[in-house]
Every structure is written in C-alpha cells, then in structure tokens.
C-alpha cells in the first residue's frame, strides 16, 4: 500500500540541507522507497546539488570515457575566461567621436553599393529580408603621439592589434540590434542595442562611442550586425554558428538582416 505524503520542493530542500530528521525523515524515506510518478516528476524537474553526484555514478557504470579535450576547445575556453570583451570596450575621445561621424558619413553610398555586390559571395553579407535593412560601418582608431588617429575602413582591412574599431549601424526601421565577433578561437556577442527608427546608431557604451580593442586577437576577425524587430537567443546562436562556419549552421532567421565586415589582425 502506498504511503501518503508526496514530497515537494521545500521538503527536498530541507532534506538536503539536513533540516529534516526523526520521524519526518523516516516518513519521507518510506514514501520514496516505493515508485511514485508524481515525486519522480518533481525530482526530474528540480535542479539541485544531488545531480552532479548522480550523474557521476551513472557515468561510472561504463568503462567508456567521453571524448577527450583538445587544444582548440581549450583555447576557446581560455578566450572566454579573459575579461569580458564587452567590458573591454573603451570610450572613444570626443575628437574621435566627431571624426568618426564625419568619416562614416562620407562615402556611405559607395560603400553600400560595394557591400551589395559582395553580398552574393559568402551567403552572409547584406542579407536583407522583410522590413528592416541594416548596414554595419566601422572606423579604425590607431594610437599616435598626438592622440588617436581615426580612419574609416572597409571590410577586408588589415589592422594591427593595437588598433580599436568604432562601429556605426544604419537601420531602415525600428529594430533590435546585436553585434557579434567571430575569430579563429570562437565567437561572442559584443554589443546589444536598438534603433528607434530609420537612421544611424553609433555603438556606444554609457552614451559615448565605444572603441573595441583588437589587442589579444589575431587573424581574420568577422563582425556581424544582426537587426530584426525582435532578436532572441536562438537567432543569435544561429548567427554565431553561421559566422563560425559550422556545417550545420542555418540562417539566423527569415526576418533578420545580417551584415558582416571583416578585418585581418596582424
């Protein structure tokens, strides 16, 4: 005969923290000793410190071990352990901010045309669907004796690791925006923002144009702008895969505009 008294969240928590003893503990033990779908459902949905011990025991059943680690994956983990790149954004100087506004404004038409022509090359660049169309512009900031020098750049630029990049987004409609970086060691979301309508949005941190430092990066670095009325985690994940060149990668989504620029850091 089944004993009454299904467990609940509070009972499990109290049991694991040693707050249940005596007769109450014996009642719980008696109930859990018999199959109980309701309690098993609760335990399955609940995450608690018991899970690790449980998995360790289950995995120890087989002499097989899982796939060992590798240097590439380890490098990616190390990369992610370094101080967050988002925090590495630096405020650009006022002069640089003004300069970037001018630099980015000049030649937009020419660059847009070039981007459009490039779009068919890799299946990523300039992908535009439905209402939101977005473009990613950038300038390179280089330290100099008289202060940073700023120059508008185009995709494919070769830049030294001491440079920083300043980005501007042009969106055709209100949209959520995300900027992703992908390099040989992995990808990351480096900025989230939004546009309230058609026009340009400078990538800013705390209200000032932000410079993304390339120090610590090497090789081909791709920066991808995603724009859509709504951007969720799945879309970002799909974009990260696409940028990483995953064979299983799909497009980020039909309503998402994607624009990619690339620099070679060396």
């Amino acid at each position, binding site marked *: 005969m089944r004993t009454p008294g299904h467990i609940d969240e509070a009972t499990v928590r109290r049991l*694991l923290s040693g707050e249940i003893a005596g007769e109450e503990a014996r009642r719980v*033990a008696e109930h859990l000793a018999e199959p109980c779908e309701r309690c098993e459902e609760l335990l399955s949905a609940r995450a608690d410190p018991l*899970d690790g011990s449980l998995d360790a025991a289950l995995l120890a059943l087989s002499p097989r071990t899982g796939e060992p*680690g590798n240097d590439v994956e380890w490098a990616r983990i190390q990369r992610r352990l370094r101080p967050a790149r988002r925090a590495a954004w630096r405020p650009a100087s006022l002069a640089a901010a003004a300069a970037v506004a001018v630099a980015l404004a000049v030649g937009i038409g020419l660059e847009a045309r070039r981007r459009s022509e490039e779009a068919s090359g890799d299946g990523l660049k300039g992908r535009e669907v439905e209402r939101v169309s977005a473009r990613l512009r950038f300038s390179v900031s280089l330290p100099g004796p008289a202060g940073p020098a700023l120059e508008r750049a185009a995709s494919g630029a070769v830049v030294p690791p001491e440079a920083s990049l300043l980005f501007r987004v042009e969106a055709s409609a209100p949209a959520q925006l995300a900027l992703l970086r992908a390099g040989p060691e992995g990808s990351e979301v480096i900025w989230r923002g939004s546009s309230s309508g058609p026009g340009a949005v400078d990538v800013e941190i705390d209200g000032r144009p932000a410079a993304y430092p390339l120090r610590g990066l090497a090789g081909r670095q791709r920066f991808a702008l995603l724009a859509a009325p709504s951007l969720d985690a799945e879309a970002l994940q799909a974009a990260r895969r696409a940028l990483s060149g995953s064979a299983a990668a799909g497009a980020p989504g039909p309503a998402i505009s994607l624009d990619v620029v690339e620099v070679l850091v060396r």
Partner: protein
Amino acid sequence: MTPIGNGAGAREDAALVARATGGDAAAQRAIYDRYRPLVFRVARSFAELDADDVEDVIQESFVRAFQGLPRLQDPERLGPWLLTIARNRALTRLARRRSRQETVDDLRREAEARGEEAAEMPDPEAGIELEVVRRIIAELPEGAEKETVHLFYVEGNLSAREIADRLGVGKSAITMRLERFRAKVKRRVLAEVARLRGEESMVRGKG
C-alpha cells in the same frame, strides 16, 4: 570504475582547485582534461542537442566552473559540482528551445548558486554506490527504457541522439527515457538520504 568525488581522485581534485583558483593555467588545463570526457557525456545525454550545442555546453560549463571556483567550498566535490553545472547548461539550452527559459533559468541559477551547499551536506549522498544504480537498472522491466539506459549508461558508446537513430524513435523520446530513469535513481538515493537522516536522529536521541 569508481564514481568521481571519492578517494584519491577527490584529493587530487582539491589540490588542482587550489592551484587553479590561484590562476595556475596548467591546473585549469588539468581539470579540463580530467573532466571534459564526463561533461561531454552529460551533454550528449540530451538527444535534442546537436554537435554544436554539445560543444557550446562544454565550453560554457568550464567557463562557469572556472569563474565559480573561488565559491566552491569543498574542492573535493569538484567533479559532481562540474557535472551539475554541465547538466544545468544543457537543460537551459533545451529550455530556451522549449520557451520555458525564464522559469528554468531561475531554477538553474538557484542550483548553481548552491554549489557550496553541496559541500556542506553530510556524506550519505556524496558517493552514490554503483551497486545501487546497477540494482535499479536490473529491476527495470524489459523494454524500451531499459534498452535505452543500457545503451547509454552501461555500454556508453552512443550519444542519446545516436540511440534515437538506432532505435528509430524520436529524439525527445530518448531524452525522456533517460530522464525518467534518472528520476527513479534520484528518488531512491533521496530515500536513502532520508533513511540515514532518520537513523542519525535516532542514534543522537539514544545518546
């Protein structure tokens, strides 16, 4: 094979944790090399996760673990703690797909934040006896669940996704079978914890 979190291996873990917490990259790499195969297998127990997802879960797990090492109060429990993180990362990824993100995220965060709680627990659940797990498998009625459990946990060659392909059933069915089995084991282990708590209080009462 001895479950992790016990004996000499646990003491080695504690030494590695002490070094890794101090920023020793070689110790971090040693932890990664030691536990990567197990983290990999935990991630592969969710058939809905593809190879990219599994890779992400592995990376996220180690990043979180290394960031959280200073909070780990019992370094000998490194292995179970890391596997808890891996499981939570995998479940969070699944939950996002199933649009239950907020609720499950909250649960996972709560569980991960309790990393130190595991260290404070008395030991009945610290090392779950393999014999108990084997007995539970043996007691399963012959059928799909037992076959799945055997393929994944006992033979250990195939991922949940590969088992779904081999058995010709949906991915979620395999994940569900493994989770259902796991819940049975968890119930039995918790029953044992409760029994020991009851006995402990009886002994104290007599003493």
